[in-house]
């Protein structure tokens, strides 16, 4: 019935409508073939990769470094287009609703709640990622890489980078910044109007970290979503936020829309802290002229959330073979190393560097030990894993409804 009504609506509306093409070969079908025949099928094809296109540094890495190498080494033309998070879910849902056999994109950049939403709506193809040859060097012992917000990727996505939340302060303006959540709370009260968080991903991750800290740590929330635990934790978090509200920027009546807006407030002296999901942004964004050169990253001792990001292949991908070749190339040591350079992107590797040949190990070490970055052991000590994406979803919804 539903299909019929939709069909009628569309046929009446479109001249060319209602044509159905044959469905393409899916990622799961491709995954049973030997890798050589995946490579053979991919040669000469084009992969449209729907990804976040907001950072020119990332864009340059993809367009000017990854794409030419893919073309030269595998004959795959990579075309990056814009789309992330909820937009992706919306776009793929609509593609499914429309009933068209093939979608536009063959690869998507996802993690966490986006992965959960895509999986639950059956919008991802797979399993496929277990067959990638370069996957052998992935640091599968790390809980941050082998799990995506506690979810088993189950072959439906392949990791390609890791990041960790950090606060950013200006060492010229705030030479002695707070180091724990309690110190930060006290600091905010003494400096009214000089702190806030954004209402998109980084801000919510910051709040989730505060929720861990106020409720006995990340361990409390391990093992799937628990509504009772969540409600108790939410009460504590929101009580804390309520007590801070009068001391926040605009007295907590308005929040910057995204982390870029937060950076802008920080760079122009309207507030004294910004934050980022990537601990190295204090360096990379200063190189780009977005943050002052005296910006420094700061990891709260209570722990900050670290997570990995992945690539997935949509259920209706027109070119699953090409997408797999791209995912495999992203895991190669050369791509992982290039991506981690502060001048390029400073995105953490997902490889277990210790298992790489010695020549590569030295190269990775020299990048990681860049003095401008937060030391690797500090990061590791305070890294906290993500918990079930339901926590993120609920927190975001409830925050919008009750705190905004």
């Amino acid at each position, binding site marked *: 019935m539903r299909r019929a009504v939709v069909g009628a609506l569309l046929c009446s509306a479109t001249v060319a409508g209602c044509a159905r093409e044959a469905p393409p070969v899916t990622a799961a079908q491709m995954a049973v073939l030997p890798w050589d025949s995946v490579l053979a099928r991919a040669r000469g094809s084009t992969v449209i990769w729907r990804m976040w296109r*907001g950072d020119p540094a990332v*864009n340059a890495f993809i*367009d*000017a470094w990854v794409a030419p190498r893919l073309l030269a080494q595998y004959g795959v033309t990579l075309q990056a*287009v*814009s789309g992330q998070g909820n*937009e992706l879910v919306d776009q793929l849902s609509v593609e499914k609703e429309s009933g068209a056999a093939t979608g536009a994109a063959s690869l998507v950049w996802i993690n966490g709640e986006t992965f959960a939403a895509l999986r639950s709506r059956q919008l991802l193809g797979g399993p496929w990622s277990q067959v990638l040859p370069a996957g052998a060097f992935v640091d599968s012992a790390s809980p941050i890489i082998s799990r995506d917000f506690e979810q088993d990727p189950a072959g439906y996505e392949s990791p390609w980078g890791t990041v960790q939340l950090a606060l950013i302060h200006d060492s010229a303006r705030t030479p002695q910044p707070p180091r724990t959540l309690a110190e930060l709370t006290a600091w905010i009260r003494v400096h009214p109007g000089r702190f806030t968080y954004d209402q998109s991903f980084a801000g919510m991750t910051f709040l989730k970290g505060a929720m861990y800290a106020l409720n006995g740590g990340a361990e409390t929330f391990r093992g799937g979503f628990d509504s009772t635990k969540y409600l108790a934790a939410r009460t504590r978090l929101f009580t804390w936020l309520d007590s801070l509200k009068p001391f926040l920027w605009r007295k907590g009546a308005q929040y910057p829309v995204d982390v870029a807006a937060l950076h802008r407030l920080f760079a122009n*002296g309207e507030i004294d802290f910004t934050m980022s999901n990537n601990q190295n942004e204090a360096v990379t964004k200063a190189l780009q002229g977005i943050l002052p050169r005296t910006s420094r990253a700061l990891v709260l001792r209570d722990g900050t959330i670290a997570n990995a990001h992945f690539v997935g292949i949509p259920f209706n991908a027109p070119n699953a073979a090409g997408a797999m070749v791209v995912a495999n190339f992203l895991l190669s040591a050369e791509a992982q190393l290039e991506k981690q350079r502060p001048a390029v992107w400073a995105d953490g590797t997902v490889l277990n560097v210790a298992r790489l040949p010695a020549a590569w190990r030295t190269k990775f070490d020299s990048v990681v030990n860049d003095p401008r970055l937060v030391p690797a052991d500090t990061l590791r000590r305070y890294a906290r894993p993500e918990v079930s994406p339901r926590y993120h979803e609920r927190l975001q919804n409830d925050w919008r409804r009750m705190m905004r």
Partner: protein
Amino acid sequence: MAAGRRVNARPLRIGRGIMLVSLTMFAMAPLLMLIVTSLARGWFHPQVLPSTVDVSGWSELLTDTSRRTALLNSLVLGVATACIATVLALPLGRAAALSTRGVRRIVALLAFAAVALPPVALGIGLQLTVLTMGLGGSLRGVLLAHLVPALGYLTLVFLGVFTQWDARLEEAAATLGATGRERWTRVMLPLLRRPIADALALGFLVSWAQVALTLLVGGGAVRTLPLDVLAMLQSGQDQRAAVGALALTIPALVVLGAARVAARRTTAVIA
């Protein structure tokens, strides 16, 4: 009497002077803001002016593949929208203008509705339609979406033009022995040069400035200059956003200027 007038004239002139100055500042300040930001890298509060001039944002407009693609997409969409919408709206406007009052009302109502629908709302339906046609995320799909408001605007333009049109000119030409073809080439088209120039400019600008429809129907796969500007802003790249905003503004001013020049020439011909 004369003395009184002189007394009145002075404060009036000062008042006009003040108004002119504040009007100029109000109209120009945002454009000046964009120009300065487009040349500033790492320019923060409280600096009133950037310490150095940096043109990398401008050179990048043509060297960066992603920005260049956005610029090209916008140009292609703008020109195609302008031409197609003009070709379709002209006969529609003419046919409606020559018809009854009731028909004119219905056509005008539909045309204005196409313009007035919130792009976010219209885009939801168009997105599904374009996907079903197999044009999801393609330039052609976005073109179809841009054509909807453009056709609305241009239909209103040509409806207005032909409602004022003096059909007696055509009849006179026919009476004087002009063939159908001659009537168009010798009478109609010269008279229509101004409205057509206006329509092309308007059609181009409707597409050139479009954000919501491109976003929804293009699904991120079709990057245009306005979307690029928004993306830059949303990643804190104010310099690049300002360069993009000026790259949007300058052609828009040129197109409008060109339409006016065409209009002036036409007026001279008729006069």
